[in-house]
């Protein structure tokens, strides 16, 4: 009860403050992600999380600098790199200096290239790219640049954490790797083989296979191969319908080991797995929600669910993006000079709302953070996903995962 009054009070104060500083500016942040098409639900949910984070974490607390407030401006890119570039230009023409994007590494590559070119040619209205979800390692390695900051752990760091946990399980001696036939699926497969070979040379990779992305109607034949290979565990990078169908099929057809994966939660997937995936699905992710790491995180999730009852607090890193950007703007003392803001972000350490410390590694602009292994269950779940009673509970926490992971990034600074 006291907590609610606290929130109410700060809201009132924020309103008073906002009224007091009528001259304050708004700092616009362009959200370029799918708001229509097959991935629309992921994009829309992400947009809600951004709007909520900007409102609660910045604007209601008096904004940044002299009361400047954040405003999220949504641009629909239909998950297309081409469309994203059009939208980027529109955003730049509106005077927007900050771009956030996350869904699809293909789009992220297009944006980071375009932004680097733009910033080189137009030193007067440069743009920062805050990537919150695209995990292709290349974005912070060979294709890195000063303007790109990644707030999610990249695919290699996640696989490193995942294989750490698998390596501890002595009863796992055979592993089956299966994924979608495109760059991310291949990256997952090669990372899994190389990390497991290093950490547990005795583990046999009994299958390593790629299937057409989004085209498989029935995964039964694949499940048969997995079961008859005698695998103790399955590793997959599948997402969306491919994740759900593969997971359900292997479980239905007699596989009884764990399934280690990246994206098997929220957007209807948690609800669809329900009981059948209990204690079987293990995700490598960031941002602890079960149990909530502290009262602040708990109150934040509750407030979000109160505003969006059908939504999911599924991308906790979004709050990190907003908080760290606000902090960097305050430190730089300006929101218009993005070089100063970028320099403030570099090497920034920040206490995450979701527990643990965040560190923006200056060499490659990869955020180093705690990576979690969570399990799909309905026990000990304070905050479920898809309103299904099921959610992801933390099992392992790898602190500052990938802190000393190598990078080939050679950044040219402005």
């Amino acid at each position, binding site marked *: 009860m006291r907590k609610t009054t606290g929130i109410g009070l700060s809201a009132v104060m924020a309103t008073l403050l906002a009224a007091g500083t009528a001259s304050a500016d708004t700092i616009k942040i362009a959200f370029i992600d799918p708001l229509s098409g*097959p991935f*629309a*639900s992921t994009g829309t949910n992400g947009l809600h999380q951004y709007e909520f984070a900007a409102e609660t974490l910045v604007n209601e607390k008096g904004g940044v600098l002299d009361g400047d407030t954040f405003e999220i401006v949504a641009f629909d890119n239909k998950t297309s790199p081409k469309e994203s570039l059009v939208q980027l230009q529109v955003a730049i023409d509106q005077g927007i200096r900050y771009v956030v994007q996350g869904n699809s590494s293909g789009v992220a590559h297009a944006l980071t290239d375009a932004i680097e070119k733009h910033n080189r040619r137009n030193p007067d209205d440069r743009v920062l790219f805050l990537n919150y979800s695209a995990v292709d390692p290349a974005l912070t390695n060979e294709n890195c640049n000063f303007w790109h900051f990644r707030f999610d752990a990249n695919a290699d760091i996640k696989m490193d954490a995942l294989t750490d946990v698998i390596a501890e399980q002595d009863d796992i001696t055979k592993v089956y790797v299966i994924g979608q*036939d495109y760059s991310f699926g291949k990256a997952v497969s090669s990372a899994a083989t190389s990390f497991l070979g290093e950490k547990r040379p005795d583990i046999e990779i009994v299958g390593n*296979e*790629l*299937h*057409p992305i989004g*085209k*498989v*109607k*029935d995964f*039964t*034949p*694949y499940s*048969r*191969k997995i*079961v*008859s290979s005698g695998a103790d565990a399955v590793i997959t990078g599948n997402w969306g*319908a491919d994740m*759900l*169908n593969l997971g*359900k099929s292997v479980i*239905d*057809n*007699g596989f009884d080991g764990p399934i280690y994966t990246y994206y098997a939660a929220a*957007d*209807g*997937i948690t*609800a*669809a797995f*329900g009981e059948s995936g209990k204690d079987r699905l293990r995700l490598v992710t960031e941002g602890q929600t079960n149990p909530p790491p502290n009262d602040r995180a708990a109150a934040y999730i509750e407030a979000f669910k109160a505003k969006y009852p059908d939504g999911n607090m599924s991308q906790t890193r979004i709050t990190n993006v907003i908080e760290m950007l606000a902090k960097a703007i305050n430190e730089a003392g300006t929101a218009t000079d993005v070089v100063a803001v970028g320099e403030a972000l570099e090497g920034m350490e920040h206490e995450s709302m979701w527990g643990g410390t965040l560190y923006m590694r200056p060499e490659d602009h990869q955020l180093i953070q705690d990576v979690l292994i969570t399990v799909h269950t309905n026990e000990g779940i304070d905050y479920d996903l*898809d309103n*299904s009673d099921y959610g992801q509970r933390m099992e392992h926490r790898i602190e500052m995962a990938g802190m000393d992971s190598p990078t080939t990034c050679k950044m040219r600074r402005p």
Partner: protein
Amino acid sequence: MDLVLVNLIDGLVTGLLLFMLSAGLTLIFSMMGVLNFAHASFYMLGAYFAYQISVYLGFWMGLLVAPLIVGALGAGVERYGLRRVHQYGHVPELIFTFGLALLIEEVVQFIWGKDQIPYEIPGILEGAAFAIAGNTIPLYKVFMIFLSLAIFGGLLFVLTKTRVGMIIQAALSYPRTVEALGHNVPLVFMGVFGVGTALAGVAGVIAGPVLSTFPGMAVVLGSIVFVTIVIGGLGSLGGALVASLIIGWMTTFAKAYDMRMEDLLTWMGLTKPEPIWDSAWQDLWTLTSPQVADILPYLLMVLILIFRPYGLFGKRDV
């Protein structure tokens, strides 16, 4: 050897499911000469209706009621849509059904959203029926097999042994004569369209929980259904069954066994170019059967069209 048996069963399930879809489509085509592009959309509607009913009344009521609603919708589409468009010829009919497919997908997204919906198999059918060498055959699949066999039997009985079936068969070949004999041919058409779409609805109801229920489910199955009826012979029920089973087994076996193109080419007396990653033929040499499994039915269709254009059991040219 055990795995062969398991794959035979898996392929049978896939094939029978395909049959339930293609049976209705091929009947509608042979009677009205209309390729119904929206057929798979009725399959999707079956799954969504059954889900909505199962939320309140349980799976079994869904299985009973959803196909009836879908069939009624289908009959309505024929009566108030297709019949009016019919006078303008076949192309407008095609465009009409094509537009209908798009419309149904949008409506489904509008009502149920873009996410997958949690349509589950009923508790009584959960779990394994039996296991062959560690490979469990889910009870639900056994149920699917028996249900589709029963439907096939029923359909065959109605078409060949009853008076209604005889009128339908007569209307298939000589609609004008049948009409002259005093039968209401438009009513027969409407009935067949309704039954055909209801069959698609049944397929949706039982496939929804295993193949997942989402707005793209019609598109995923849409093209393969056409391939099936072309292979089987347009208008032939038996052909649809045989083609469905062939496709089911062909894709299942191709995916379950990692047959490599490399072995085939070596067997044909060719030598593998070394190093393979520099060769222009790299893609061909590194192909495996799971990668091509889903295009095999299309390949078969092309071959059928070349060598036997009226399909396996069909009587008329495509």
